[in-house]
């Protein structure tokens, strides 16, 4: 209920809020995203996606994610509160689901593709 707030309860304007980019700057950001996407598409066609190529793919994805949120969603220019709220969700999701995937032996272990009797005890219940 913003209309009933007493003046002492109203926060001062956020000092972290800056002016937004111009249209031309937005176009430049979109071009950068297109170049990154092109590199992402190029890699699997010419290299096996493992080791360094795999890491580069993930870095490109993370960079594109960061660029869109920073410039198009204005997180770079808006209040830090929005950044904290959104990235709390992102990091919580990454953390929780990395644990879930490791529970299912997805990383560095092919137990899910092994015959049932050769799997470690926990993996027998995950198929």
């Amino acid at each position: 209920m913003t209309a009933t707030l007493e003046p002492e309860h109203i926060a001062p304007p956020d000092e972290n809020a800056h002016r937004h980019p111009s249209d031309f700057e937005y176009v430049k950001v979109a071009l950068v995203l297109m170049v990154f996407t092109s590199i992402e598409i190029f890699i699997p066609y010419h290299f096996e996606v493992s080791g360094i190529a795999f890491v580069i793919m993930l870095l490109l994805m993370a960079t594109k994610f960061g660029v869109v949120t920073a410039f198009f969603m204005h997180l770079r220019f808006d209040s830090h509160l929005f950044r904290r709220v959104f990235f709390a969700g992102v990091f919580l999701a990454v953390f929780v689901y990395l644990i879930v995937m490791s529970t299912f032996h997805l990383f560095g272990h092919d137990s899910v593709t092994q015959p049932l009797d050769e799997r470690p005890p926990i993996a027998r219940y995950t198929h």
Partner: protein
Amino acid sequence: MTDAALPAPAHDAHPTSTGVSNEKLGMWCFLGSECLLFGGLISVFLIDRAKPVLKGPKVSSLYDIPFTSVSSFVLVMSSLTMVLALAAIQRGEHRRARTWILTTATLGSAFVAGQVYEFTTFVHEGMGFTTNLQSSAFYALTGFHGVHVTLGIIMLLSLYTLSLRGKLPTEKSETVEIVGLYWHFVDVVWIVIFTVVYLIKP
């Protein structure tokens, strides 16, 4: 170029206890929670993809990467047109804002049409929703994303109608910004899906 000389204005201070708009903060909270929804769907897909396929084709054997790449470029372009719509309405250029909003909705529709085409092709190739675990996880993940894009298109068309009726003045540009946040989030989720699901194969 006059646009370069006139950057979009910063946000006004809001008379709230946080100093920011409650509506915008609400949208950011919603988007943070959406990360958990899509994180769950992506995890399930990755877990199911690692398992052997007992029936029907493997999902990765049916991908048409050039076609999906074009869809990805379309979605990136729609993010650009969305942010240009916001910048235009913040400058009071309503006609231009409407053009960009309609362009964004059109690009979004092209993306959804591409997804429908992809799904139809996959079904004709023998991969239905219940064919195997991989296919169920794939359709659930990309289908949920498609539904989000469709909802975004409906919101964009509502904005267009409001603007045509003169109910979207410059002072209410935050409405466009909030719909824009949702739209960009849909793009961000696709960035992850495109890389993890389509490009990085097991």
